[in-house]
């Protein structure tokens, strides 16, 4: 379809839309009210739930820090707490950056650039979160073993299943999954990068 034909179809649609005005004053007023917006619900739920879980676990570990009575369990506990505290800040912060762009003052080009940059940052945060999450998966094992069962994970674990099967299995799974994650996000990041480059080059 040529542009001229597209313009003709568009114009016909515009005429039809003009004849079908259906919005009422009440509907418009309701749309302007915060309570009818989906914004609260729009806050990324998975990240919010994740943040609550992270902080709950971090607080539990901090309260029971004295129970981690040898250096390696204590170190695991500290690493776990740091990651659990940092992860939600990183992900919610990057989401916030994407949401708080000035849509009223910015031009379309500025918004596209800022949004692409924020999106790129968000994708990187997700990738980093994934790796940090994997570290937590290991550091939390001795901590939870100590806090829940009172056992020293390294000294008292005798099960062949845990050491010889479960951990290599987890690592294999991580390697396979990380390949997919990296591939997926690399594509998104490079498409955001090319858009930024293209827009920043133009006046």
């Amino acid at each position, binding site marked *: 379809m040529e542009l001229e034909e597209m313009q003709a179809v568009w114009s016909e649609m515009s005429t039809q839309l003009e004849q079908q005005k*259906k*919005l009422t004053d009440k509907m418009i007023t309701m749309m302007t009210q915060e309570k009818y917006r989906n914004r609260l619900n729009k806050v990324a739920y998975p990240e919010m739930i994740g943040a609550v879980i992270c902080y709950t676990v971090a607080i539990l570990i901090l309260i029971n820090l004295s129970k981690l009575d040898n250096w390696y369990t204590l170190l695991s506990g500290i690493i776990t707490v740091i990651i659990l505290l940092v992860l939600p800040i990183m992900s919610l912060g990057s989401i916030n950056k994407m949401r708080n762009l000035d849509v009223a*003052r910015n031009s*379309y080009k500025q918004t596209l650039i800022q949004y692409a940059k924020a999106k790129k940052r968000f994708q990187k945060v997700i990738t980093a979160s994934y790796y940090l999450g994997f570290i937590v998966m290991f550091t939390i094992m001795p901590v939870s073993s100590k806090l829940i069962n009172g056992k020293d994970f390294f000294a008292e674990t005798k099960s062949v299943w845990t050491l010889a099967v479960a951990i290599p299995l987890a690592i294999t799974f991580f390697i396979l999954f990380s390949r997919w994650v990296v591939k997926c996000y690399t594509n998104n990041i490079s498409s955001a990068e090319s858009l930024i480059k293209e827009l920043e080059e133009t006046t």
Partner: protein
Amino acid sequence: MSKESEFTRIIKENEGVIFKITTIYTNDQEDQNDLYQEIVYQLWKSYDNFRGDSKISTWMYRVALNTAITRLKKEKRRGKRIEIDKVIIRQTEYYDTEFEERLKIVYAHIQGLNELEKGLMLLLLEGKKYEEIADITGLSPSNVGTRISRIKQKLKSQIVKK
């Protein structure tokens, strides 16, 4: 006229414009309704700052297009929703099937463009002059011209491919 009634009048006058923008930037009815509400909300929020600094249409297109591109795709579902479905769906009942098919082709062409081109294309189809398109998009008028030429080429190549 009060601020509220003035705003309501502007939205009513331009409801078709908002509808067209939401159609281009969403894939389903639910998403479209959400975006429609979000645009009206953002317009209301920025209404005080607008104060006639620019043309109403420039302000409206700018806010609506910016809202459309910054809206997180996953940010949707749930929440109280004003039933504007009937407002929007009804228009398809008026279309004859042939026109609907042609309209689908137009939308398919637009969907094939990138975000910047999509915005430019919409403004072009809306009959905006290069100067106003430049004002809304932040590009220079000459750059708008160059990019629109590229879009035309792209459309032609889409036709050749088909």
